[in-house]
Each structure stands twice: as structure tokens, then as C-alpha cells.
């Protein structure tokens, strides 16, 4: 099976969807002639032409708004945010327009808004954010964030084929650092399904994105102490896969939630609440979380490293719940 980088897997998924369905088109800043700031769409303009690979003005609200309009009348737009931080400019279009169309008047808005998220590359406060929590609170949206090349390709395809608006967050730290086997040709990773990336019986780690890789490292370290960690990759953040989350935690009785996003109002809080409401009797220890602190994400390498959750913190959290 071919081995691709995370970025190549996204590109292949997009490419195949554009080959498969002529209703699929791309719009965003510098995505055509330049091939995208991270080169995700390199070569697309040459293959698909400027009608389906549209270089736009710097107008995130117009990019997402126009995607909504085109989707309403039957197209399948994929809008790129050059950095996912800039999605805030399109917040209104996403939370008030796209998310509410089906509910208010029964109209489908099959758009995908994708872009690079996350830290680790010293991008500073405006090129490193994780924005899922802003949208996690909006019924009508779906949110996915793959951590592996396999999932990246399968989820971009699923997102494009989905009949609801999907936010597709791709972690820029993983773009060229993570490689993995990716089948040639068509397959999808269903939206709404988490994946057990490492089975274990003692403690469950629930995580996604870059933090999956740090959690797997932590699980490996702690295995030498005789603690078997089950690592669940959420993959879809909205809607959460309650079944996978709850059955894993009901089995281990101990849960650590790890996310790169900041702490207060982060997804970990909601997951912990669901565990509390539904399988409280199965818990052997309090549910804990490992997250970034409640600050903006700083620029300078020592500050950023301090801000980002590290493997050692995850190891300590797992140890703590295991020994509770």
C-alpha cells in the first residue's frame, strides 16, 4: 500500500473527489496559481481549471458565504481558510447562515470549510489556534479533525459527500511529519465514528489531532510500568461518537482527555460531562484532562512549548488516574 504524508493524503482525497464529481469545486486565497500557502492544492488549477479552483480576494466571509450560496443550488464547494484562525471572519456565515438553514427552512448546505489548525510551528497567536470550541457549540455544524493520513483522506471524502456543513481541521504540524499507508482509490471514513488507535484495559485516553500522536507516545512509555492504555482517536468532534467513548471508558473505568485547545470551554468538559451523566457507576477515578492553559498561544519557542500539552504531562495524568 502506498505511503503518503498527511498533506498528500488530503490532497489525494480532494483530487479524487473533484475527479468523481464535477459539482465539487475549490475556493480560497492563493489556492490556484500558487497552489495554497501549504501547497495542499498544488497542481489543481492545471488539472481542473480556474472555474473549479478559484483564487479569491482576502474575504473569508465572502468565501464562506459564496460557498453557502453555491451549495444551496446544488454544488459541493470546498472553501479553504489559509490558516484556520481566519475562520473567525466567517463566523457569522457559518454559525448563523449555514448551520441554521436546514433547521429553519429545510435547505441543505453541503459545504466543507477546511484549513490548517494548531501549533508547534511557532506561528504565534494568529497562525496557531485551535478553533473547534467556537463551533462545537453550534447545532447544525459538523467538525472533523483527522490525525493520520488514512483518516485524512477518508474524512475529506466523507466531508465533501456529507449533506451538512462540515468543518475540516487539518493539523499543520502533521502535514509533512506524519506518514502512513493510504489505499489508492475510493474509501471513506464515516463522520461521527471515533477509532481505537491502541487497545488497552486500564485507562482510556480520548484525544484527536496532533495530541493523538503524543498520547500514543505516552501510552508506550506507561506500558513499561504495566499500565495498558486504550487510546481513542475521536476523529469527529461534532457529533461526538458517544458509543465508542462510553464503551471504552466503561471498560477501563478511567479516562484522561487530551486536547491541544485551551482548557475552559474546551471539548474535554463536554466529554467528561457525558461520562458523568451516563456511566458514572463505572468510574474508578475522576476524569481528568490535559490541555493547553487558558492563554493565547504564544510565539517564542520556549513559550509555545510550555503552552502545548507535552507527553510527560499525559504520562503523569495517566499514572494519577491509574493509581487513584
Amino acid at each position: 500500500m502506498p505511503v503518503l504524508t498527511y498533506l498528500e493524503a488530503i490532497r489525494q482525497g480532494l483530487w479524487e473527489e473533484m475527479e468523481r464529481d464535477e459539482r465539487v469545486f475549490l475556493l480560497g486565497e492563493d489556492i490556484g496559481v500558487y497552489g495554497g500557502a501549504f501547497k495542499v492544492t498544488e497542481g489543481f488549477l492545471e488539472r481542473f481549471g480556474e472555474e473549479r479552483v478559484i483564487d479569491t480576494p482576502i474575504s473569508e466571509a465572502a468565501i464562506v458565504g459564496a460557498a453557502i450560496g453555491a451549495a444551496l443550488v446544488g454544488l459541493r464547494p470546498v472553501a479553504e481558510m489559509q490558516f484556520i484562525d481566519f475562520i473567525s471572519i466567517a463566523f457569522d456565515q457559518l454559525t448563523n447562515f449555514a448551520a441554521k438553514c436546514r433547521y429553519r427552512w429545510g435547505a441543505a448546505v453541503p459545504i466543507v470549510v477546511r484549513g490548517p489548525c494548531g501549533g508547534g510551528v511557532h506561528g504565534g497567536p494568529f497562525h496557531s489556534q485551535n478553533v473547534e470550541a467556537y463551533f462545537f457549540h453550534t447545532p447544525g455544524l459538523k467538525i472533523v479533525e483527522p490525525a493520520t493520513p488514512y483518516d485524512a483522506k477518508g474524512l475529506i471524502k466523507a466531508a465533501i459527500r456529507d449533506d451538512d456543513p462540515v468543518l475540516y481541521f487539518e493539523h499543520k504540524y502533521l502535514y509533512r511529519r506524519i506518514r502512513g499507508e493510504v489505499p489508492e482509490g475510493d474509501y471513506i471514513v464515516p463522520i461521527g465514528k471515533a477509532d481505537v488507535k491502541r487497545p488497552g484495559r486500564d485507562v482510556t485516553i480520548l484525544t484527536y489531532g496532533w495530541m493523538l500522536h503524543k498520547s500514543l507516545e505516552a501510552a508506550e512509555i506507561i506500558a513499561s510500568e504495566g499500565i495498558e492504555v486504550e487510546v481513542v482517536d475521536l476523529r469527529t468532534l461534532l457529533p461526538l461518537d458517544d458509543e465508542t467513548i462510553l464503551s471504552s471508558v466503561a471498560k477501563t473505568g478511567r479516562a484522561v482527555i487530551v486536547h491541544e485547545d485551551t482548557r475552559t470551554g474546551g471539548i474535554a468538559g463536554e466529554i467528561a460531562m457525558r461520562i458523568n451523566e451516563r456511566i458514572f457507576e463505572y468510574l474508578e477515578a475522576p476524569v481528568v484532562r490535559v490541555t493547553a492553559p487558558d492563554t493565547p498561544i504564544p510565539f517564542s519557542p520556549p513559550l509555545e512549548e510550555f503552552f502545548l500539552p507535552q507527553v510527560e504531562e499525559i504520562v503523569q495524568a495517566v499514572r494519577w488516574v491509574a493509581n487513584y
Partner: protein
Amino acid sequence: MEEALTPKQLLDMYYYMKLTRLVEERLQRLYRQGKIVGGLYRSLGQEGESVASAYALEEGDFLAVMIRNLGALFVRGVRPWEIFTQYMGKGTSPTRGKDNIVHFGSVERGLIPPISHLGDLIPVMAGIALASKMQRKRSVALTYIGDGGTSTGAFHEGLNFAAVLKLPLIVIAEDNGYAYSTPKHKQMAIENIADRAIGYGIFGETVDGNDVIAVYQATRRAIRRAREGLGPTLLEVKTFRMRGHAEHDDAWYVPRELLEYWQKRDPILRLETYLKEHGLADETTFEEITHRIEQEIEADLRYAEESPMPDPQIALEGVYAESPSVSESPSISRESEVKARS
């Protein structure tokens, strides 16, 4: 070249303007009787521009109204019962009670409903125009924005986007004097909104919004350019809001003289005068049309009043294409919990 209107077309427009006014008058009574839920936003004095601009559209075109464009909806096939049920929050309303006022539509009918956030429709309608261009269709997209709404970022982003991509989009900018209580000069430092067209490199035009023939012809010109691939138009219509922002607002801040000035320029009165002067209609014609409308309104209002309120469970429906499993508290359902334990 001006496109002349036939007598039938003029009478058609008269019907829609009058229908708009009489439906709103009825809504006002219902409002005072406490029979409608929420606020009432009237378009008194602005019926002409809404009707005439929408009347210039053809089959396959897309329309997105704002709150003071009820007349445009009627032109495109909406019936009074839809408005009454929307205002009453009935289960038979187009949104089944999920949204109110003119916030409804359907892609099949070419009607895209607004959200309350001003300006946001412009990028969306630009996207519809983009799709029309990509699919080699003749369709144009037309939407409205008030003088206040032109101060938003979405207005700028949408128009600039449509200009750069030369999209078949028509934006009718309604200068109706006030945005809620804020007069136009506190909204912008220019006299004519259409002047902004120069900055976008698109066509701009200002017309008398209470002259339905002028509005119709200017909209037709804009549509023709759009279909020919010449890009968007910012068409400004000068009109006036003759009531408050909504019925709770008595508009004490609007000088009497302004209201008197515009009262004399009422679009319905002006069309009546025109029709009479050209021998196309007389008082009997107007009375007949009014009588017909009153009967239509009575029947539709009866239907709305007799309609049931929505089933509360509808509140949970239609968030996603397929219903995801809802995370519930144990007191509500333990079904999933059992699954989790097994």
C-alpha cells in the same frame, strides 16, 4: 433602450403593491389584538421598489428579501396565508413555526430567506450567482440591503467578491432614510449609496424608489447586463420608511415634514395617478382590485387562524440531514447507557 411596460404589467404591479399594503394593514390590526407573535415590520411607503424590482425578474432567477420586501415575495408567488402563519408561529407556516416574518423560502421557488444579520445575504447571493455562471445558466441573483446594512463588512466583502468574479448579482440598496433610529448621515459620509459602485468597479445607478416604472426599468437594465456577463449592479432606490423600525417604535425621531414630503410621493398613489392619466384605469378598476385582495386576505387569514400551533417535538427536528444520537441525561433516556454497558 427602455423596456416599456404593458398596461397588464402595470396593473399587475399595482395589485402586488396593494396586496402588500393591505396584508400589512391586516397584520397591524392582528398585532394590536395580540394575535401575532413578536414584532411587526412594515414596508409602508416602500412597496413600490420591492414590487417593481422583483417584477423585473424572470423564471429561474433567485431572490433574497430583507424584512421590508414583502411585496417582492408576493411577486414571486408567495401567498398571504404564508405570511399570516409565519407571523402567528403556526404549525402550517412555511417554517413550521421555527422562524418568523419573511424568514422563509425554498430553493425550488428561487427564494432564499434572510438571516437577521445585515449584509450576510450578499455573499450568499454572490455564491448563487457564481453557481449560475459555472453551470452556464441564465439565472441572476437579486437581493436587498438597507442604507444601514451597507455599513457592514459582509456588504463590502460580498460586493467586491462579486465584482472581481463578474457575477450576475443585483443588489438593490434601499435608502429609506433611517436604520432603526439612525439617520443615513450617521451611517455614511456620502449622499448616494450608488456612488460606492465606482469603488468596486461595477455599475451603479440611483433611481426614485417610489416610481415603480423607473425601478422596474433600472432593474431590467441591471439584469440584462448580468445575463450578458457584465457583472453586478448596485442599484440604489430612494424611498422612505413611513413607520417605525417595527410597530413598537413610533418613530418620534423622524421629522414630521419628512413624512409629509414622502406621503405626497406614496408609490401606490403615484401609480394610480399614472394609470388614470394614461387612461389605463379608473377608480372602479382600483376598487375591483382592492375588493379581490380583501377576499383573498379573508380566506387566507381564516386558514391561518384555524391552523394549529406546531407540535412541540418539531423543535428537535431538522438540525442535520440524519438525526444524530442526542446525548441525553439519564433521567430522559437510559437506552444508550444500556448499550454502553453491554
